[in-house]
């Protein structure tokens, strides 16, 4: 069964909804986007339909610089992941704009991935889907 129905949302990432579409469209355009509340200005990273601070539904796309510092990470070993080679680093970073972003850090040796290390973002294709990953600065 496939839920990845044909759509005109401007991306082909699997399993998205209308709250998350902007993020994947941003990756297609090589932009790392978060939401910025149009009323109170608060940035929110994990997409959601409403500002948890002022409850406004109005928001704008806000591009991040891509620069951050590793807050935590995991090196995935087992079981094998579709689309990635093990060992596979996944990094949660504190971005300089004050929000967190989770992204792969494949392409960097796992032993170089440590908490507090500065990272920046690069855009990649994973199969036919636009993606991103961190790398060392």
């Amino acid at each position, binding site marked *: *069964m*496939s*839920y*990845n129905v044909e759509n005109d949302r401007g991306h082909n*990432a*699997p*399993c*998205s*909804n209308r*709250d*998350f579409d902007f*993020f994947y469209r941003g990756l297609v355009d090589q932009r790392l986007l978060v939401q910025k509340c149009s009323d109170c200005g608060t940035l929110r*990273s*994990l*997409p959601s339909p409403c500002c*948890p601070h002022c409850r406004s539904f109005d928001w704008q796309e806000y591009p991040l610089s891509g620069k951050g510092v590793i*807050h*935590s*990470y*995991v*090196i*995935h*070993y*087992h*079981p094998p*992941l*579709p*689309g*990635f080679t093990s*060992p*596979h680093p*996944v*990094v*949660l970073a504190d971005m300089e704009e004050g*929000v*967190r972003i*989770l*992204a*792969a850090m*494949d392409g960097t040796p*796992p032993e170089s991935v440590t*908490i507090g290390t500065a990272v920046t973002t690069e855009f990649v294709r*994973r199969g036919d*889907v636009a*993606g991103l*990953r961190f790398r060392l600065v």
Partner: protein
Amino acid sequence: MNNFSSKTAIAGYGATEFSKNSGRSELRLAVEATLAALADAGIDPGEVDGMSSFVMDNNSEQEIFRAIGGKDLKFFSRIGQGGGASCAPLQQAAMAIACGVAKVVVCYRAMNERSEYRFGTPMHSLPPTSDNVIFAYHGAAGLMTPAAMIALMMRRYMHETGATSLDFANYAVTARKFAATNPNAFFYGKPITIADHQASRMIADPLRLLDCCQESDGGVAIVVTSAERARDLRQKPVYIRAAAQGSPGGSVSLGGFYRDDISPRDESAAAARQLYAQSGLGPKDIQAAILYDHFGPSILPSLEAYGFCARGEAKDFIKNGNIEIGGTLPLNMHGGQLGEAYIHGVNGITEAVRQLRGQAVNQVPGVKTMLVTGGSGLPTSAAILGVE
């Protein structure tokens, strides 16, 4: 406040054997466990009028009910969040009975979670529910398994507290020691050493294989009725002193990475606050505990969240022998889900019942009040159980 504390009790429990291949349907496991629990309580199946479980159980309430020859099912509920909800059916049952909606509620969990499917595999091709779009968003980074999600939380916990893999080994060794003397445990007769733990392969660094719960086939059921009725039944009543769910703002299912403290702790602390308020008890009154060990390292922040030690002190609490029988808080005496079986936490509730009745294989002498918890790192649940 209308309080249901101690107004209901666990009157019976039942379980199948725990294995890697049950050889029968999940529904049959559920029905076997349910009938065993009713027989243990001394309640006729025709008296059941409530059933409660949590999601990821493939057995519908009415199908179990049909199989046991049930007459009139008035209350049936199913709580979200998988193992986080393992104690939530106790709260459902207690509330339903205290409100007069039902009189005899069966809480159940049965699965062939090894022979027919496996929870540890990468999640993909999901319908776009509100939770699944988040799993997919994280999955795009290659964060696809529960082990990796908890590992990401625990790596930060290690950074903040100084806990190491050796501290995780101390829990794993203790759990497997208890399992080694529990004939119902899959790892009966198979203790491990610190060196075994350290030599076990990485699954999701910092989690090693021996930090991970098992994958198991099996079924467990628990019968809850009013305290008054329970006192007239066959077994010593195990009272539900308190039962709660916990999901503070910022909770995400295995993905609470966007709040100040990403360690698997906030949901548990939220449940703890309610349990202690409902029951009038505190951490000092808890004489033994069953803490959910989907991954053994999560025991450390759980000990802190439920108030048994201060933030960052769990590693020393364990190292100093507190979780042994004879220690201040004997923990997971059945061997936990690392050692006994992974029946999504409900086998921990039955261990608490055995302990409180004085029928456990690794018995804590004279134990009267216990804590049991659901999975951490996602919206959770927990209960305080006790005997007179």
